[in-house]
């Protein structure tokens, strides 16, 4: 008779990883079915339950590869990256990186970035609420403080860059899509902002310089430092228009003064 600790260790190994079925079957009553058949019900429930949870978070990846292949991807993923909490909101974050290492997915080179986009969407959906910075508070900044001025982005903001037109692929796989579905994979990549200004998540394609600028603000550089860096590659970067746009659209939520 095994201790509770050993019973749970063996059961978990089998249910998540298909390992040690005979060990896990010790101490289990057969009663019409074999202990192995009874255990297999739990293994199937566990693996299918986690596969469906992953599919819920990655509907476009699922649509692109089809149910069967998604199931294979999910089974392998679950063995390496099982949930680390009883709340599944954090489960599946490494799926994009995992797909990039999965050989039989190599024929869809944009798939890892699509998974990363869907994860950004998922995170943004559940992130904290925040109110937009009011223009008036910016007007109050003393001219002497400009050199230290920085901004906090909305907690839901995620910035993602891809060599592939993943936004177009994402859009053409939405239920309400009405375009012709033709995507040219040789088309250029994209720079995306994903955030949730109110209750709906939005995905905004950005020029590279604007994407870099927001990324630098998110990395807590001051406004002046960020502009200087962006202008190395984009000397005509229109910082006033960009700031105005993101103040108006609720992306900037606080002013910070860097020491």
């Amino acid at each position, binding site marked *: *008779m095994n*201790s*509770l*600790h050993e*019973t*749970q*260790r063996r*059961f*978990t190994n089998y*249910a*998540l990883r298909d390992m040690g079925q005979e060990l896990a079957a010790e*101490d*289990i*009553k057969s*009663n*019409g*079915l*074999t*202990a192995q*058949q*009874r*255990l297999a*019900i*739990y293994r199937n*429930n*566990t693996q299918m*339950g*986690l596969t469906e*949870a992953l599919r819920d978070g990655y509907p476009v990846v699922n649509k692109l590869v089809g149910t069967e292949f998604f199931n294979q991807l999910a089974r392998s993923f679950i063995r390496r990256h*099982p*949930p*680390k*909490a*009883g*709340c*599944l*909101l954090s*489960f599946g974050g490494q799926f994009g990186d995992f797909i990039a290492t999965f050989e039989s997915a190599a024929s869809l080179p944009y798939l890892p970035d699509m998974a990363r986009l869907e994860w950004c969407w998922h995170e943004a*959906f*559940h*992130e*904290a*609420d*925040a*109110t937009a910075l009011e223009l008036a508070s910016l007007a109050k900044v003393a001219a002497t403080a400009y050199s230290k001025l920085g901004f906090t982005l909305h*907690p*839901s903001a995620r910035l993602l860059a891809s060599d592939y037109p993943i936004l177009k692929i994402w859009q053409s796989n939405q239920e309400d899509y009405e375009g012709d579905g033709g995507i040219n994979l040789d088309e250029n990549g994209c720079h995306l902002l994903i955030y*949730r200004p109110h*209750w*709906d998540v939005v995905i905004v394609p950005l020029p590279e310089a604007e994407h870099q600028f927001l990324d630098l603000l998110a990395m807590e550089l001051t406004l002046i430092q960020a502009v200087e860096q962006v202008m190395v590659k984009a000397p005509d970067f229109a910082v006033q228009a960009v700031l105005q746009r993101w103040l108006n659209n609720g992306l900037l939520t606080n002013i910070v003064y860097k020491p």
Partner: protein
Amino acid sequence: MTHVQHTFTASSVIPVSAGIGLRSQHYNDVLETHPTVGWFEVHSENYFGKGGAPLLYLEKIREDYPISLHGVGMSLGSVDVLDGQHLAQLKRLIDRIEPGLVSEHLSWGSFGGDYLNDLAPLPYTEEALLHMANRIAQAQDFIGRQILVENPSSYLEYQHSSYKEQDFLNELSRRTGCGILLDVNNAYVSCHNHGWDALDYLQGIAADRVGEIHLAGHTVNRVAGMDILIDTHNQPVCADVWALYETALQVVGAKPTLIEWDTDVPALSPLIAEAQQANSCLGVGHELAA
């Protein structure tokens, strides 16, 4: 953003009438049609996010209805250390929603920090009883209120179990002050799968400890020539479970009763019809159900 503490118009108390498992598909329907339903229950973990639409909708619906929080991920029976972050997230949700009931399962679901997202069975031994009682006490202390513990659907039993499931639950309740959530469908499923006597099971449950009843649909799977019932929550409550529910009401008395449906979730109306059926069994008049 700091959250402003609500005081909701609707009472927090879960009435002795039928409630419905609230899923995201139903948010708009509930807010627009304001159906005559006594209360709603949600899975706590679906609202562990920091913000956004799920919490917004839950708070709006809480304005009009009592809410019960049902957990599926605390892994109470696990030998792992109880997850402090999980408990803190639950406590934050309790403070925000002011639920009438908080419940979890007689099961475990994690080992070594890996989670199964499933309700795995415990051996009903002295060792497991001590462990589970200790964990329930810890969780109740942390959140500062009683937890109802639900009997699971199970597909296997351990040879070294020395308690019947109903006795194990009663003993947990006696030792920790936790309540019992009697899932009649789970009792039906487990009794079928293990050859237990369902009436004996219900009569063995400490009636005064039962704070809530669950009803749901299950699936019949044929495994090696034997019918095994799987707790799928993907169809209506079957006739046999309705009959067992009627018996349960005679044995444990009228209790708040939840209609659960979690997979292939239908529109609200068939769930309301099932809730009305439960209300008739409870003797709750239509006008009293609101």
